[in-house]
């Protein structure tokens, strides 16, 4: 039913991935950083679904499910950490969490 070449799907994934990466590199707010990570993971999942669709296999979708699980796990730990950090550092600025260096 679809006749979109795989290129287009992968290109979309790539663009989303790059956008997520940009967000990760630019934003200072921890919540935004976590969101950017979600975008990147979602893009990777999209790439898998595209690839699986190319081969007509369910494997790509299965990997997507696992990525979904993993994203959920990351986010839950990440957000718990954000709460803790907000309590200790009184800010959400990641650059505040750079006491260790050198």
């Amino acid at each position, binding site marked *: *039913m679809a006749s979109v070449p795989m290129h287009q799907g992968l290109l979309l994934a790539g663009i989303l991935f790059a956008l997520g990466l940009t967000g990760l*590199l630019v934003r200072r707010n921890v919540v935004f950083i976590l969101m950017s990570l979600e975008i990147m993971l979602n893009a990777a999942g999209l790439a898998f679904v595209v690839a699986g669709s190319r081969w007509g296999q369910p494997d790509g*979708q299965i990997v997507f499910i696992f990525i979904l699980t993993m994203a959920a796990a990351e*986010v839950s730990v990440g957000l718990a950490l954000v*709460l803790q950090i907000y309590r200790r550092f009184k800010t959400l600025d990641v650059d505040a969490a750079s006491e260790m260096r050198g």
Partner: protein
Amino acid sequence: MDAVFYIAAIVAIVSTVLAITRLNAVHALLYLIVSLLSVAVVFYVMGAPFVAALEVIVYAGAIMVLFVFVVMMLNLGKAATEMERQWQKPGMWAGPSILAAILIGEVAYLLSNPSTLAFGAAVVEPKLVAIQLFGPYLIGVELASMLLLGALVGAYHLGRRTQGKTEK
């Protein structure tokens, strides 16, 4: 159907751009949800209805709600937006944007390869996915459960408000 794909793709890209540039966290989250929904549409177009549904339910539903929840808890209001405005100087976008541009360029380059890769294009039914998932990938499912267990314990430990100072 092609048109649906392209529209969904453009919506996804635009809403993602907006998501990462918004200053207000809740606005950003809403854009992100839009982005995820359009990706779900893309999934559907590519013959993966099952994950399209999952994308909507789990990603756009559960995970984003978790975000909203935390944002609410932290009570990021106007002050935070103001703070974001100070943090976000236009110059900061330059470097990362270049990196991202190179990355997109690379993706585009490698996809411009003449060996055309067409979709197999058959719809992969949820039933098939399920059979595979609980067949060869059974161990994967179990591992995913351990992954969630680890996350659960970790989040529980880290999220605890008072570190048991009374202990011992």
